[in-house]
Each structure stands twice: as structure tokens, then as C-alpha cells.
């Protein structure tokens, strides 16, 4: 039966007959050999030849440049593709210092974080430090040595320089080395060697923001010229007279950290420092103050004298002449005296006389040894204004034969820069060692470019006995040479390798005390980045002549004549002193106060900006004339908080040779700096005229007040907070159908079944009390996430791409019902900074409206963007209540239009800074904060490989990592032991809620922005607490 069912199919009669011929070829595809086999070539051969021929033709026709990607022949032991390496190093820019950890991917430094091991910066960074990684890839860097602007070999340059040096030395000609503050002991040792070889050499240091007055004052008061360590964390009362210690004064990173410690409050620690600020411009420090009084620069001395007298009256000491009544001054004195021993008075003035008085006040308050540590001196500012002035005189008189500018740019950033520049052509030997040409390099004969700090070995001693190492994180990109090697070469030293010099120095200096073998010691220092030795405590005795100082103040300061205004020259929060002005990250970083980018401006009290409405940043220009100087013409920025009769002009603009990014923006303010009492004076009485020229300033925020919206900004005062930590908290309630009496939390009225987070649930907390608005986080975010920079025009079009912004709100005098009035800021406003980023809503309004599901919710609480799914309807951005979504209006990468503003995406050199873990977004795509999802994934992968859960703190987002004050805390809300859960007192679940796994925070300060619309963010803000008295009823 079975047999009959089985059908047999055969291919042909041959198979049926099964002839021997058939059997022989049966396994082949074709019974007969094909024609190609006859020719001795297979079909495959043909295809191969064909393919080769085609591609050869195609390649020959292709004119695109061939970009070589050369694989490692032998892979370096410590470089794994896609695995970052971290190196401890030191950021040094003149006297500015930060101990850092550099993230290096495949040999390219791509991100800088703070190094917590340094006792000075304690892991803190500033916006400038964060941005400096892009300066490494600056297209306007020097590519090698140059003589008369022509590229030469280093040995040719050395030969000429040595010949000239010897010739000058033979005639006994004067040689000068000019630099900013040098923090590096090894560099100083190298200069000493150079001086030993050429004994007519003098080394002159100057600072853009000089603290020479403090050095001189301390010399007079205590017998030695030093700057002490100010410990703001210990101060219960802080009085600052025009010292912008959070923004630019001496060591802002260190001060910000200390200051924030004192400002922290919670239910256990209900005490915070009280901060009085007396200033003319609204500085970031003044913006953080509890009491801020507007004074004129000419009154700084008088305010200090008045404070001296008020304290002296309490201390039973003699008073001095001068003084002026100012609001809050008496109150400040009372508070200072009440917290005697934990009070701190600082003044930003560079006038010795004022600083002597300040020293006197601090002495009476017992600050020395408590809030001021005179034994732990700092080296951040060593500039000698008198020596620099003398140098300019010598240079002009033709007394200097040779001058070497060591990594400084005095032609631009010294008040006498023009004179220096003019005199340079008469100098036999002029050398600049900066890694960029800049204004000074433009005028010298020899350019001997140094490495960028990320390419070089170096050391630093920012504070007494705190030593910090710099190590290269990349092979020098160009044919540059460390300046120290240059000095050693020119001095004819046998050892010219600066690395060996540093290592040898460290061995000599610390080797003996290290207690381990030298290599181990060195390796440890290199690994840690810092080495510290204990400092011997030393007490100081104040012996300053306060009477003479007060007299000097009375004589030296004159209020502006009628028709004049008092000018304050200051460092803005983004460009700083201008040394990194060619860094587009800083150009596009909004100044913390003015929110201006890419633009120079003069801040004017709004009432004095006559005829300027300043609607959408439309303004006019002003002509500022200092006697004997060329007038400066810049745009007017009406600035609430600016003292009447004063104007503020930021430094750092008016570059001419910094590069494509910075050149031609604004005017140079350095020439307006005057000399007073032997030191640089950052102010002058000037003629101020509003001219007809119209201008639009690029600002990222054009509306200044929070419109009294309690759901956006919540704040209270300390006395209320002490009584009830939830005082002034705004808790929106919604009415139900049971009538107006029955009000419930908005989040309980939901139709949604919430997301279930079974693994992690990422969240963030931002403390409005400790956020100083410094914006380091903004730059960190930009660098970490390859955020495009768009340039001035596009910012004016309101299209900056920042994923994280700092909203800055001024208070208004109007009642909350007066909407028109609320739009106007007060004359002396209170300020709140609110970092605003994607809130990662649990009920995200953006997610529901995307027609293609390009933005979705992750299983860990993230609101995530799928870039290549996005079709660009922008509905999500419209529907975002927080307006944090950013659209790629243009192609910002590989686009000539953005070549000079978005260098990181448009040039081969710039592209090296891009984070390879983050996609560069294309045109037409929406983007926004991702909670650094690449970092979360990396952390989870590491943990997974080690078969464990991610530990708290292991994953951190870039903004939180960059936050010097710890205001931003990121973590897992599902982990009840995590820092964020404890901080917010997160309640994971509670039974009467319709939603499971939805978190609520029991921290009485915690609130969510515009909670009532029920989007349930994963970011909480901690209510701001001001330490001021309750307003009188």
C-alpha cells in the first residue's frame, strides 16, 4: 500500500533510465559544463572582476577627499575604543585655578569635571573651566613656531633667539619676562634658571583683575604681602563691598563652594549665613545677597569707612574720618558684631586704602583665624601693578632690549596695552609664548607657542602647600613646545624636557617627606592630581594705619560731576577677562545676570536709559568717554539693580586678534582702567552719551520677572522657615464636584494609569538656595551632549539650543494682581536663579502629541527623544509647559553658515571635542535634555558586567557633576537610600492614590514647577529661603 502512494518524480528520461553518463554529472547543477567553465573562469571570477572594475572607475571619478581612519596596529594598553579614560590634571589660566579630571576618549579630551581631591576647589569648576576643553581645539591656534609671522622650524627660532639673547646679555641690555600670575613653582624655577643665565632679566607679573591693593594692604597691615584664604562657609554674616566673590573675585570656585555651604538649609540645619552686598552693578554675588544696597563706586571707600566706624563704636575703638549713610549699613554692622568671630567683610576694590580699612574691620570682628586664614595664603593673584607700570615706562623709554611675554596678552588686557604695542617695534627681541597669537603675538617678532594646558605637563601651587599637577591628555596637536622648554633651551640648559624638570622638582621638594619611594609618590600624585602638605598655623596682628587710609579715601574719591556717570569695569560671568573669548561655548553662554550672549554692552539703570524701551532687547548705543582715552561705543543694556548714576562695562570684548569667534565683538574696556593709589582702578568718572545708533542685543531671556507666579518660583524667609519649614509653600489644590470646600491635590485627580518603574526611577532635585546661577552646568551640558551653538543672529531669533538654561527672575514692586506692573522689575530687585531643563514629566504633554511617537517614556522615568524618528512637527515643543525643547532650525553641523560660531561641529579640529556617545542632531529634529542617558546606560552596563545594581552616585548627570555647590542632585528615586530619596524624603507609594509607583516628596521645601497642570515632573525644586527680616506690616 505504501509503495503505491509514493510518487516518483524524475528530472528527465536520463534519470528514469539512470544511465552511467547521468550518474556521473548528477551532483552538478548543470548536466553539461557551462560556457564559463570552458573558458577557465568561474562566474564568480567574472563578478569579481566586474565589481573591481566598477569600483575602480567609481573611485577614480570620486573627488571627495579621503579621510583616513587608521586603526591601531598595536593597540595602546590603556586605550580601548569607546571606553573613556580619566586623567587628573589642573586647569591654569593666569591666576585662575581648578583641579580637574579630564575625560579622554580614544586619545581626545572631550570633557572636564572637577577633582574633588583638591582642598581648594573641592571638585568645583566654573563655566570657563568647563569650556576650556574647546579652546584646545581652537582653529585660531598657532600651528608652530613663527618668525615675522612665517612658519619656521623650532631650531631656527631657537638659534636666532639665543643669538639675540646673548648679544643683549653681552651689552648688558635689559630683558623682561612678562606674565600673568604664575601658579607653577616649576615654571618659576625655570624662569629663575633663565634669569641666572641672563642676569639682566626681570620677571613681571600682572593680573587682568588685579588684587594688588590687597597685597599692599596686607603688607601694610600685617607685614607681608599675601592674600589669605577666605572661608565663606564659616561666616554667619558676610558683608561684601563690591566684591563679586561668586563671579570673578580672586577664587570664585572656592568661594562659591564655601558660600553655598553656609547658605544650605534644611529641617535639621535651620541656620544660614546672612549676606549683605553693597555694589553699583548687579553682580552675580549681589544677586545672591539677602540685602543688597546700591552704591556708587566713588562711595565704596566711604561705605567701608562707615562700616569701620560703626564697628569701631561697638568695639570701643577710635573712629576714622569719612563715611556715608547707606541703607542696611547699620544693620549690617549690628549683624557683624552679633556674629563676631564668624563674620566676614570683603571688598572688591583694588585700592590699598580701602583694603586696609577692611582689614581693620575684620580685625575688630575677630575674623582672622576664623573666617580668614592668614596662614593659608593663596597665590591666585600675584600681579604687581606698580612693577607693570614701571615696565611700560621702561619699554617706552627704550630701556628694554628683550621682552618675553609668557602666556599673556598685555597689548589687549593691560590698560597700557596700546603703549606696550607701540613700543614693541623698538625692542630688539620680542617673543610671545602664548598658544595663540592674539594681540600681543601679532606685534612680536618671535612666536614660540606653548601647548594648551591639556597638552602639557605642569604644576601649580594655588595655595600655600597645595600642589597640583597638570598632565597631558593628548599628544600635542600642533608643532608647539612647552614654554618652559623654550626658556630652558634659550638658557642653554642641558635638560630641556619640562616633564623631567617637574618630576625632578617634585622629587626634590616632596620626595623626602613623602615617605614612599619616588616613583610610587609620583604615580600617586599623578593619579590624585594634587599633593598637599599641612600648613603651619600663624596668627597675624593688625597694624595698619586706618586713619591714613581713611584720609586717603576721603581725598581720592570724587563723585562724578553733573553730566558724568561713574563707570564700573567688571568681568562678566561668561567671557570673564577675555582670555578665552574665542571660545564659542563662552560667547553663547548667557551672562548669569544680563542673559546677553555674543554681545558687549554697558549696563545702565533703567530709569537713566532715556528713550529706550528695551522691548525685545532693542536698544541704542552709548558713547563712553574717559578723559584722554578714545571713546568707547557700545550698546546700552538697561539693568535693574544698577545704581543710579553708574554704568557697568564688562571686560573681555573688543578683541582684534583672538580669532574668528571673538574678533570685532564690542569694545575693549581695559584702556579705561585707571591707576589709583598705585594700583589699577576698575572705575572712572566718564562722560556718557546715548547716541542715535540702534542695536539689538542678543539675549536668551527677554522677560525678567516671574510675574508673581508662585507655581514657578517659591521662596520664603528664614524666620518663617524656622517656625514652619513649609511656610510660603504654594500647594495648588483643585476643587471637586463636592463643592469648593473639598479640594484635592491635582495629581490625585487623574485618569491615567501611571508608568510603572520596576527598576530605576531617575529624578532630580535642584536647590534654589544653593544655586548661585554661575552657569557652569550649562557649559557642562553643552559639552557633554554636543549641543549646537547657533551664534548671535540666531539667538536674536530666540533659537539658542541650550538644553539647560538658568532662568533669572527679578522681583517686581507691583502687586500680584497687576499684570502690567509685574512685567517691570524693581529698581533694586531680589533675584532668583532657576535652572530649567526637561522636567521628565511622568504625564508628559509632549509624549501624547507627537504623531510618530518620537518622544516616549522610558521604563526608568526618562522622557526620551528618538531623533531619527522625529519628523519635526514641533507640537511637542509648543505643548511643553516648561519650554525646554529645542528644534534644529538649520543644519548646525557641516554648514558654512555656522562655521565661525559652532566650531565644534564644523571644523575637523573642532569635531574632536564631540562626545562620541551622543548623536549630533540633524536639521528638522527636536531635542532636549536626556538626563544624560548615555551616562545612565554606561553606569548600568558597568554594574551589569559586575553583576550588581547601580550604586547611588555612580551615575551622575553632567550638570549635577559640574555644580560646585551641590545644588543639583541626581539619583534613583526607587532606591530609598539614595541621596536624592533622602533629600526629598520621597514617599514611594501610598495606598490611597490611584497610581502606583508615583512619587511624592515630603521635604517641606520641595515643590514642582506649575504642579497644578498635573504633568508630574521628575524634577523637584527646593524653595528658596532668604535670610532677611519679615517685611514690616
Amino acid at each position, binding site marked *: 500500500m505504501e509503495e503505491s502512494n509514493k510518487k516518483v518524480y524524475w528530472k528527465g528520461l536520463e534519470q528514469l533510465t539512470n544511465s552511467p553518463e547521468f550518474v556521473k554529472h548528477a551532483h552538478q547543477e548543470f548536466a553539461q559544463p557551462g560556457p564559463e567553465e570552458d573558458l577557465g573562469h568561474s562566474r564568480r571570477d567574472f563578478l569579481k572582476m566586474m565589481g573591481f572594475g566598477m569600483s575602480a572607475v567609481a573611485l577614480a571619478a570620486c573627488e571627495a577627499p579621503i579621510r583616513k581612519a587608521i586603526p591601531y596596529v598595536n593597540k595602546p594598553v590603556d586605550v580601548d575604543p569607546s571606553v573613556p579614560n580619566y586623567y587628573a590634571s589642573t586647569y591654569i589660566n593666569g591666576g585662575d585655578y581648578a583641579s580637574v579630571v579630564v575625560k579622554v576618549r580614544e586619545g581626545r579630551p572631550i570633557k572636564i569635571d572637577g577633582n574633588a581631591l583638591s582642598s581648594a576647589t573641592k571638585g568645583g569648576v566654573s563655566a570657563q573651566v568647563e569650556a576650556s576643553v574647546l579652546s584646545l581645539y581652537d582653529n585660531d591656534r598657532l600651528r608652530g613656531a613663527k618668525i615675522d609671522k612665517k612658519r619656521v622650524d623650532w631650531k631656527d627660532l631657537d638659534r636666532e633667539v639665543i643669538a639675540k639673547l646673548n648679544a643683549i646679555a653681552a651689552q648688558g641690555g635689559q630683558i623682561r619676562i612678562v606674565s600673568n600670575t604664575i601658579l607653577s613653582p616649576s615654571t618659576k624655577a625655570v624662569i629663575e634658571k633663565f634669569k641666572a643665565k641672563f642676569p639682566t632679566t626681570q620677571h613681571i607679573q600682572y593680573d587682568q583683575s588685579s588684587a594688588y591693593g590687597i597685597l599692599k594692604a596686607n603688607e601694610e597691615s600685617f607685614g607681608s604681602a599675601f592674600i589669605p584664604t577666605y572661608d565663606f562657609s564659616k561666616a554667619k554674616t558676610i558683608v561684601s563691598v563690591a566684591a563679586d566673590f561668586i563671579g570673578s573675585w580672586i577664587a570664585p570656585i572656592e568661594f562659591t563652594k564655601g558660600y553655598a555651604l553656609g547658605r544650605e538649609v534644611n529641617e535639621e540645619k535651620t541656620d544660614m549665613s546672612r549676606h549683605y552686598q553693597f555694589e553699583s552693578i548687579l553682580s552675580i554675588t549681589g544677586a545672591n545677597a539677602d540685602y543688597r544696597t546700591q552704591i556708587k563706586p566713588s562711595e565704596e571707600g566711604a561705605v567701608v569707612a562707615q562700616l569701620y566706624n560703626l564697628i569701631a563704636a561697638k568695639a570701643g575703638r577710635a573712629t576714622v574720618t569719612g563715611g556715608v549713610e547707606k541703607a542696611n549699613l547699620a544693620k549690617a554692622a549690628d549683624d557683624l558684631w552679633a556674629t563676631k568671630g564668624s563674620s566676614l567683610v570683603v571688598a572688591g576694590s583694588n585700592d590699598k586704602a580701602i583694603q586696609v580699612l577692611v582689614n581693620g574691620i575684620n580685625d575688630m570682628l575677630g575674623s582672622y583665624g576664623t573666617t580668614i586664614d592668614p596662614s593659608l595664603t593663596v597665590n591666585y593673584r600675584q600681579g604687581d601693578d606698580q612693577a607693570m607700570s614701571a615696565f611700560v615706562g621702561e619699554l617706552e623709554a627704550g630701556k628694554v632690549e628683550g621682552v618675553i611675554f609668557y602666556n599673556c596678552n598685555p597689548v589687549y588686557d593691560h590698560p597700557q596695552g596700546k603703549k606696550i604695542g607701540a613700543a614693541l617695534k623698538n625692542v630688539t627681541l620680542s617673543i610671545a609664548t602664548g598658544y595663540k597669537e592674539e594681540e600681543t603675538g601679532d606685534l612680536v617678532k618671535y612666536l614660540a607657542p606653548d601647548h594648551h594646558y591639556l597638552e602639557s605637563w605642569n604644576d601649580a601651587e594655588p595655595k600655600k602647600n597645595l600642589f597640583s599637577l597638570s598632565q597631558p591628555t593628548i599628544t600635542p596637536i600642533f608643532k608647539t613646545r612647552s614654554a618652559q622648554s623654550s626658556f630652558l633651551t634659550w638658557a642653554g640648559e642641558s635638560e630641556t624636557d619640562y616633564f623631567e624638570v617637574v618630576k625632578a622638582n617634585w622629587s626634590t621638594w616632596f620626595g623626602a617627606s613623602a615617605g614612599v619611594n619616588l616613583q610610587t609618590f609620583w604615580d600617586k600624585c599623578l593619579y590624585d592630581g594634587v599633593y598637599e602638605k599641612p600648613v603651619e598655623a600663624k596668627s597675624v596682628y593688625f597694624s595698619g594705619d586706618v586713619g591714613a587710609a581713611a584720609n586717603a579715601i576721603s581725598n581720592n574719591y570724587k563723585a562724578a560731576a553733573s553730566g558724568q556717570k561713574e563707570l564700573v569695569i567688571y568681568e562678566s560671568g561668561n567671557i570673564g577677562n577675555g582670555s578665552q573669548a574665542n571660545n564659542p561655548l563662552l560667547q553663547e553662554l548667557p551672562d548669569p545676570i544680563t542673559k546677553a550672549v555674543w554681545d558687549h554692552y554697558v549696563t545702565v539703570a533703567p530709569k537713566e536709559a532715556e528713550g529706550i524701551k528695551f*522691548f*525685545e532687547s532693542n536698544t541704542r548705543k552709548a558713547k563712553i568717554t574717559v578723559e584722554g582715552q578714545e571713546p568707547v561705543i557700545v550698546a546700552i543694556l538697561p539693568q535693574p539693580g544698577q545704581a543710579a548714576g553708574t554704568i557697568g562695562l564688562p571686560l573681555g570684548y573688543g578683541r582684534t586678534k583672538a580669532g574668528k569667534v571673538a574678533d570685532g565683538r564690542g569694545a575693549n574696556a581695559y584702556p579705561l582702567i585707571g591707576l589709583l593709589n598705585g594700583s589699577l582702578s576698575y572705575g572712572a568718572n566718564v562722560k556718557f552719551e546715548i547716541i542715535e545708533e540702534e542695536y539689538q542685543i542678543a539675549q536668551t*531671556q*527677554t*522677560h525678567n*520677572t*516671574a*510675574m508673581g*507666579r508662585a507655581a*514657578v518660583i517659591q521662596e520664603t524667609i528664614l524666620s518663617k522657615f524656622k517656625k514652619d519649614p513649609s511656610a510660603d509653600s504654594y500647594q495648588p489644590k483643585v476643587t471637586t464636584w463636592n463643592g469648593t470646600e473639598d479640594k484635592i491635590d491635582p495629581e490625585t485627580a487623574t485618569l491615567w494609569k501611571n508608568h510603572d518603574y520596576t527598576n530605576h526611577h531617575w529624578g532630580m532635585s535642584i536647590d534654589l538656595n544653593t544655586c548661585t546661577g554661575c552657569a557652569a552646568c550649562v557649559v557642562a551640558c553643552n559639552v557633554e551632549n554636543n549641543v549646537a551653538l547657533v551664534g548671535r543672529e*540666531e539667538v536674536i*531669533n*530666540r*533659537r*539658542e539650543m541650550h538644553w539647560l*538654561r538658568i*532662568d*533669572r*527672575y527679578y522681583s517686581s514692586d507691583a502687586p500680584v494682581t497687576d*499684570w*502690567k506692573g509685574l512685567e517691570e522689575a524693581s529698581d533694586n530687585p531680589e533675584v532668583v536663579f*532657576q535652572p*530649567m531643563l526637561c522636567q521628565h514629566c511622568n504625564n508628559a*504633554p509632549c509624549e*501624547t*502629541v*507627537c*504623531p*510618530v*511617537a518620537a518622544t516616549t517614556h522610558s521604563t526608568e522615568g526618562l522622557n526620551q527623544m528618538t531623533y531619527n*524618528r522625529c*519628523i*519635526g*512637527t*514641533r*507640537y511637542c*515643543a*509648543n*505643548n511643553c*509647559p*516648561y*519650554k525646554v*525643547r*529645542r*528644534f*534644529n*532650525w*538649520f*543644519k548646525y553641523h557641516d554648514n558654512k553658515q555656522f562655521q565661525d560660531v559652532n566650531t565644534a561641529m564644523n571644523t575637523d579640529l573642532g569635531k574632536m571635542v564631540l562626545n562620541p556617545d551622543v548623536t549630533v542632531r540633524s*536639521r*528638522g529634529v527636536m531635542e532636549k535634555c536626556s538626563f544624560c542617558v548615555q551616562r545612565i546606560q554606561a553606569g548600568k552596563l558597568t554594574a551589569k558586567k559586575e553583576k550588581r545594581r547601580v550604586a547611588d552616585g555612580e551615575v551622575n548627570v553632567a550638570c549635577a557633576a559640574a555644580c560646585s555647590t551641590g545644588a543639583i542632585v541626581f539619583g534613583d528615586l526607587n532606591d530609598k537610600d539614595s541621596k536624592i530619596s533622602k533629600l526629598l524624603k520621597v514617599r514611594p507609594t501610598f495606598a490611597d492614590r490611584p497610581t502606583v509607583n508615583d512619587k511624592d516628596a515630603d521635604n517641606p521645601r520641595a515643590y514642582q*514647577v*506649575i504642579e497644578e*497642570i498635573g*504633568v508630574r515632573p521628575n524634577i523637584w525644586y527646593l524653595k528658596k529661603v532668604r535670610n532677611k527680616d519679615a517685611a514690616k506690616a
Partner: protein
Amino acid sequence: MQVTSVVRDPLVTGGKTVKDVSHDISRQVEGKPTRSWWIAMAISVVLFAYGFYCVCTVLWNGIGVWGLNKTVGWAWDITNFVWWVGIGHAGTLISAILLLFRQKWRMSINRAAEAMTIFAVICAATFPLIHMGRLWLGFYWALPLPNAFGSLWANFNSPLLWDVFAISTYFTVSLVFWYIGLIPDFATIRDRAVVQGNNIRAQIYNALSFGWQGGAKTWMRYESVALILAGLSTPLVLSVHTIVSMDFATSVIPGWHTTIFPPYFVAGAIFSGFAMVLTLLLVTRVVFKLEDYITIYHIELMNIIIIVTGSVVGIAYITELFISWYSGVEYEGYAFYNRVQGPFAWSYWSMMTCNVISPQLFWIKKIRTSIAATFVLSIIVNIGMWFERFVIIVTSLHRDYIPSSWTGFHPTMFDIGEYVFTFGLFFTAFLLFAKFFPVINMAEVKSIVRSDSEKPHHKEGLGA
């Protein structure tokens, strides 16, 4: 057959016979284009070409050439979209709802109104496509097509997806309805062409008429189909703009998050649609000498609809204002305060003047029966309706919850260029339609003129 009422004025004046109807309307199709047609066409094509250049620039460089910003993500693009969709409402309303209500006066205007609908919807559709900047993605990702992206599919929660369905459905049904109506008229032109011996025209219109023979059975089927399509279209008239309004109503933005939007949008759409129909017909009737078919009576009736819908819209505006205060929600309150008082107050007051005040003039019979006044007011109404959408979209977005992000909005030449593009497209299409298609439904109009055997009516209608 023809019922002539002694109490009602005839809908077609001039004592037209059935033959006259065929002749008057087919004449445009058969004759050479007039000089005025050429001039109008030239202007339209220039507008279209300029607009096309602007569209290409946007697609090539990116949406950045428009004036939009981080806060105002939609402005002219969606304003124009909603405006055109609104205009596209009148055609179907006239042909479907008025058919169901047996309003015979619609017969001489429904053809042109439907054509207008179709072209307006096409113009409207260009905006959502162009506003993505990369429309090649939008073509297929926004549709729930089978794909190889795994579980990734269109998001049915999104009102934008509802828009895709609503508009494509509306467009399809309107197109079919319009075309079905055209078939007998195409056959008329074919038949006349045969008589005139114009072979080419006869063949083309024969193809267009699908070989219509005009048998009683065919007419019966034709009328059933028309009724069915009218039934299908009627809910669409309401649904399309309801869904468009949900783009806003389902959001969280103050000024958008409003339950009143669906009826308010539908009323506004009919309002603007009728105004546009009037604008176009007032020109067409003069250019093509159709004064006897599109009479003052038609114009007056449409003006009455404009009063009604304009008043509905006006009440909606006032309700919105009242609720924004009554709700006690500060964001809502501020949004409306800002409309009335803020930087874009001029657009709000333009809207109020054009949409609420100007149509009230039609209460005066003299004005609503005046061709010049109607023409001016119909344009004013459409300007007002444009401002309405601009006010809703831009003034709500530019100042919402977080004051730090408040911005302005300034259109560029490319924002304007895209609008010009749709005008060029619309008028080019409409002029082609007016030249090559019968602009009035001959077959239907014939049912309301007296038959040849009847004696001329003693009264010559309003126009005489």
C-alpha cells in the same frame, strides 16, 4: 414639472430656459479664454512661482528661514493651515447639508464652492507638510503603514494624527462628491462638442464623464449617490474642524486648552468659508456673466449665514474672555489679558473688528444686498479669520507658563512666501477649473428654471 411659486422669487432670473442654461455655462468651457482670465492666470502663476521658490528655500535650508523660535513653534504655517481648512468648509456645507435640507438656492453656487473646498484643502495640506521641514518623512511616518520599525508606529494619541485622518477623509469625500456632480455636466459639454463637431473636446469630456448617457436609471443612481455622499459629508463638515481645533484644545497651553474650541472652530470655519465663496463668486459671476444664476438673492442668503456664524464666533470670543476671568486660573487669565493688552493686541483687535463688528453690518438690508459692500466685507471677514487663528496660535504660545521663555514673533519673507504660494496654487487651480469645468451645476440648475414650454414669468426677479 417646474414648480413656480407665486410667493417666492425665482432662484434663476432673466427668464432662462434649459437651453440657455446649457449655453451660458458651457460657453466658458468652449470658448477661448478671455483677456481677464489670462491676466488673472498670469498673476496667479507669478504668485505660485514666487511661493514655490520660498517653499524650496525652506525645504533646502530648513524651517529656520521662517521667523519661528524656541517658544513660538507654530505661527504662520499653522495659522494658514487652519485658515485654509476653514475656508474649505463652505463647499461641503453648501452641497451636502443644504442638499439634505433641500435648499435649492444652493444649486447655482455649489459647484464653485466645492471646487473652492478642494483647492483650499490642498492649500491647507501643504502647510503641515512643509512645516516639518523634511516633508519626505511626514509623508509616510505619519501614516499607520505597515513598516519594518518593529513596534514603532503612528501615535494614535496625537491630535496631529487625527488631523491626518480627518483631512484626508474630508478631502477624499469632497473630491468624489464634487466629481460625481460634474459627470452629467461633462456629458452635456461632450454632447455639445459632438454637435459642434469638435472631436477632441468630445473625446476628452466623454472620458471625463465616464460615458454618461443620462438614462432614467442612471439619473436615479446618480441621485442616490449624491444623497449618500451628502450624508457622508455632513458629519465631516463638523468633524474636520472639530479635530483641527483639538490640535489646540487637547494641549496644556493657556489659550489653547479650551473646551469651547470644537463648536467655535466649526462656526468660524463656516463663517470664513462663506466669505470666501462670496469673494470668489462675486468675481466669477461678473467675469463669466452669470448674474442671472448667482443672483442678489443668493448673495443675501449667504450674507445671512455670515451674520449667524459671525455672531456665534463673536459669542465664543466673549465666552472665552469671560471664562478666563471666571475660572480664576492665573495663566488663563494672563493669556487673555495678554491678547487684549499685550504686544499682539493689534491682532486681537483686528480680529474683533473684522469678525465680530463688521458682519453685523449685514443686518442692514441695503448692505447685505449690495454687491460692493458684500465683496469688501467678505474679504474683511477672511482677514479677520486669519487673525483669529494667528491670535489663538501666536499670542497663546509667545507667553505661556514660564516667563523666562517669553518671546516675540516676527515673520520673514519666507513665512509670507509660503502663504503667497498657497494663494498662487489656489487661484491657478481655481482659474483652470473655471475655464475647463462648468462652474455652475447645469444639471441641477435646470431643475429650477422653468421648462421651455412655459411662458415667461411676468416678474423678472430682483435684478431686473
